[in-house]
């Protein structure tokens, strides 16, 4: 007889394993490792499934578990951040935008070249659907620092795509 916990677990795996894999892949950059991370995440999630109060929060909860599992494997330094208010905003040009390149591979390559300290919050936002406040809690940063990082992540990504160097005009904190 299948327990309600097992049914809930099955549903989570079937509905969220793809999203988790995508996030894990961009987090670690390796398909096989991403697979292992997703598997280990769900196996750990099973043990703590009673802690999951809201199904709507399941994805964020699982991503948090996945990040911990990844961190357990790969200890990383916490990046330093600047304030979003210190950033100059250059005029956009059509050439920067990926729709003109028509190449998703270019974006993927650019993402791979992006520094993890920029890539991590961007992934949490774009793939995880986290708000800046949620990312801040996840990364143990201030919301302002997160806003700065995701802003600069997009700028750097566009610069990598279009070869524009104006993102270098972003002010650094003293």
């Amino acid at each position, binding site marked *: 007889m299948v327990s309600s916990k097992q049914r809930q677990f099955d549903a989570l795996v079937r509905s969220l394993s793809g999203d988790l894999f*995508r996030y894990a892949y961009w987090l670690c950059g390796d398909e096989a490792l991403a697979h292992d991370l997703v598997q280990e995440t769900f*196996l750990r999630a099973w043990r703590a499934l009673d802690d999951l109060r809201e199904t709507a929060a399941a994805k964020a909860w699982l991503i948090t578990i996945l990040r911990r599992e990844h961190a357990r494997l790969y200890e990383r330094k916490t990046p330093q951040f600047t304030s979003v208010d210190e950033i100059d905003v250059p005029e956009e040009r059509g050439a920067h935008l990926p729709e003109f390149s028509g190449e998703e*591979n270019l974006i993927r390559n650019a993402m791979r070249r992006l520094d993890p300290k920029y890539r991590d919050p961007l992934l949490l936002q774009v793939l995880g659907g986290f708000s800046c406040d949620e990312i801040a809690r996840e990364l143990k940063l201030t919301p302002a620092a997160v806003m700065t990082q995701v802003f600069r992540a997009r700028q750097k990504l566009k610069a990598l795509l279009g070869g524009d160097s104006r993102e270098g005009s972003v002010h650094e904190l003293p």
Partner: protein
Amino acid sequence: MNCLDFRRRLGAEPHCNDADFLRHRQDCPGCAEAQARALAFEQTLRQALAVPPPAELAEAVLLAHATRQQRLRRVYRRGALLALAASLVLAFGIGLRVEARPLTDQAVEHLRAEAVTLTFTQPVTAQAVRDAFASRGLALREVPDGITFVACCPMGRHRTVHLVMSGEGGAVSVIYVVDVRTGAREDFQHGGWQGRSVPLGAGTLILLAQDGSRFDAVERAWRAALDAR
């Protein structure tokens, strides 16, 4: 919110629904166009990041989960069996150790645990004594006088009848071990007690007292009672 604030917010949160943000977008065509471009970029970015997961990923995870659960159940079962086996070995080992100890040692230990019985002075009825022995499968020919305590006690794995006989010269504890007969009659001293072990009938009579001066009389009385002269 001015255009710079809007663009900063746009770069950080392209899908922002903040009231000030939305109001500025409504009032500023340039920023509205910027957001349209930003959202298009977001759409392309999301598509680019959407790497396809391995086929049967969910099934692989569920299989791994089921396998681990099965393994855990096996480990628990094996652990429980090992624990049971260990308990049996331990119990058996303790049993062997107990059995390896001389009967007289076990009797002294038993008496220590029930030392209070030596203080009893009220005589028990002859019938109570007969009943105690009868429950051990023995019929008494007669019942000695002066018995102030009687009980059927386990001693290790042995079955006994434990009695106390009061009288001048102090109380004597009498333990008749029903199911084992020692090889030879002997007097002994153990832990401050004087003792005598007597093979009697199918069992062993063990006498213990602070003063063994009454042992001969008590032994005679029990030889008569058990019809084992």
